[in-house]
């Protein structure tokens, strides 16, 4: 991409600055229901009274099935919400996302509820872990780090699995 190391460093730092601006910019956005962005758990925990009567979309873990109660987290703060008017069958530890109207007394009048069963949740993280390891191994076998130029280079021949496990000899 760049002919000199200095230009590359300047580019990387500039791009990281833009990315950081994105993180702060997005974090400062207020919900806009007209654009499909409804208040979430962080807004309810931040100021519950302000959002009473509004449509909200909140995700949390099921802590009680009958009545349906979920625990919503925001950093180290938590709130327990009771979901009414839901006909979905849920189990403890399932993750649910609920869309509905926020009512007084930590209640959401449910319009729609999406359930992610606990074991499916575990499955998702397990296969995602497998995928991350697979891509990592492919990268190590097919690309190498050129310490002199500070770039990744394609290997002429993929690194053998044996060498990958034992570690590649330098030089």
């Amino acid at each position, binding site marked *: *991409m*760049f*002919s000199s190391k200095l230009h*590359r460093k300047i*580019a*990387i730092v500039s*791009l*990281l600055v*833009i*990315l950081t601006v*994105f*993180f*702060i*910019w*997005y*974090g*400062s*956005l207020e919900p806009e229901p007209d*654009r*499909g*962005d*409804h208040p979430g758990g*962080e807004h309810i925990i931040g100021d519950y009274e302000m959002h009473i009567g509004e*449509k909200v*979309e909140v995700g949390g873990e099921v802590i009680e099935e009958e009545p349906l109660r979920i625990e919503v987290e*925001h*950093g*180290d703060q938590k709130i327990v919400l009771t979901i009414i008017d839901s006909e979905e069958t849920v189990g403890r530890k399932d*993750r649910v*996302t*609920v*869309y509905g109207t926020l009512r007084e007394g930590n209640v959401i009048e449910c319009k*729609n*509820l*999406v359930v*992610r*069963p606990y074991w*499916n*949740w575990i*499955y*998702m993280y397990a*296969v*995602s872990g*497998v*995928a*991350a390891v*697979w*891509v990592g191994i*492919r*990268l190590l076998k*097919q*690309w190498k780090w050129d310490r002199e*130029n*500070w*770039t*990744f*280079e*394609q*290997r002429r021949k*993929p690194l053998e699995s044996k060498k990958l496990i034992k570690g590649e000899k330098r030089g």
Partner: protein
Amino acid sequence: MADLLTHVLVGYIIGVVLSWKYEWISRSYITIIMVGAALPDIVRIRLLLDPFTIEDHIGIPFSWTPLHTLGGVLISGMIIACFFGEKTGKRVFLLLMIGAISHLFLDAFLITASGYSYAVFWPFIRSRLTISGIYLSTDVLPSVLAIISAFVFWKIDRIE
């Protein structure tokens, strides 16, 4: 977001198909498409570094979500491409974007409670798409279908 395995397998299939048309797309470059297909999931860094804790420390609003939007993948793809040589870097960026866009496209079809998808095109467009989702991020079927399809394409590729 769908599970990471589904995303990287879709990236693999795209890579294999493209390698039939473009000779320069070698196995190493197929891996780069797979990395691109995993790129938006860097957003999972929030499981390790809680954005709300960061917010408390720095005193200003903060969110990792841009990493899972078009704007975010463009910038993170450019950062990664900077770590490759001049000619390779341009190819890497292109392939990372192909993988990342396949990821964002698949995730636009996730079932949501409100019926609104996520802000795919942020920061260019803030509105969320109204798409009737067809699967959940935790569903087993997408990954099973992706495994079978990838196996079929791997077999065809070997015959080719």
